[in-house]
């Protein structure tokens, strides 16, 4: 078991990061910190996906004329996370604009404080 964990250390770290991000989203009441937590979760998943495509001693999947042929890393997860990164950036942009609007309404970015002020 421990051997398996050490072999897949990248994956383990990715999962720990994911949970740290998830905890931040749940527990912090500041909206910007929640967004940071979401970003951490997203980065963790991307890290996981890229590590899946890794080939030991592999080169980057680019054919450079004149370079000797070498085993190359899996290009499919890289394409997947390129798409996923763009999606996560878009979501973060929308979320930040919502946070800005929230700030304009309530004068604070803290969800708990906004709830108190409403009371």
């Amino acid at each position, binding site marked *: 078991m421990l051997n398996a*964990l050490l072999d897949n*250390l990248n994956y383990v770290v990715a999962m720990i990061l*994911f949970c740290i991000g998830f905890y931040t989203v749940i527990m912090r009441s500041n909206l910007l910190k929640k967004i940071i937590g979401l970003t951490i979760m997203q980065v963790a998943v991307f890290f996981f996906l890229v590590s899946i495509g890794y*080939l030991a001693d592999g080169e980057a999947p680019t054919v450079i004329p004149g370079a000797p042929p070498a085993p190359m890393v899996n290009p499919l997860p890289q394409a997947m996370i390129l798409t996923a990164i763009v999606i996560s950036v878009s979501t973060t942009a929308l979320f930040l604009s919502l946070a800005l609007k929230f700030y304009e309404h309530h004068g604070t970015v803290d969800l708990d404080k906004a709830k108190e002020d409403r009371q």
Partner: protein
Amino acid sequence: MRKILAILFVSALAALLIYTVALLPPMGDSDNPTNQHIAPRYLERGPEEAGTGNIVAGVLLNYRGYDTMAEVAVLSAALAGVFAVLGRGKKRIGTTFIDGSGVEFSVVSRIAVILLVSFIMLLSIQVILQGTNMPGGGFQGGAAIGAGVMISTLALGFGRTQHRVPYSLRAILESTGILAFFVVGTIGVVSGANFLTYTLPGVSAQAQAIVRAAMLIIVEIGIGVMVGAVATSVFFALLRDKEADDVERAA
């Protein structure tokens, strides 16, 4: 109390995920299922089939080009979403700077920024155009364009930068991503194959490689321009001036 529950829940989730991950095939092993089925074909026949030296770009634009089109649509939707929430950042009053003061940066800073932005734009054009053969591509280059615009806005003020990229120009540029995909894809349909196949009707087999390279570049440029325009527009919208928008709303 809530904190303890949260910690317990997250720890349980972490335990489950780490357990799952330990069961996965070892990382980097060439016998993995991931390195068996689809990936070898992409790596071996990618450059000749997809027409790119950069195999990741080949996957993004050719093998899985439909995903990239959807991704470009996500960018458009996010931009529309930012406009929906904040307004479109059309007008700005005066040459206001980020800190609200009217104080200009020194001449030295301004010239340095202008030089810097010129090189950044050159770099991003290179990244976009070379994206099919070297690491790079439309998204990366577009992000660099956006960064260049942001730096010049920060240093030179809104007044000087924003009128160079007015809303009407940005609206047109933002459509080039989907437009490029639509046009290139329909050309594929017209030439008898399925959507987003990079061929042209009535062209000899030798010229097909050139046609394919040209269509790939068109799509790359479309993506690059679009990402740059989206980044710029989101930046301008986020830095909106609430009073200016109230004036616009009353108009």
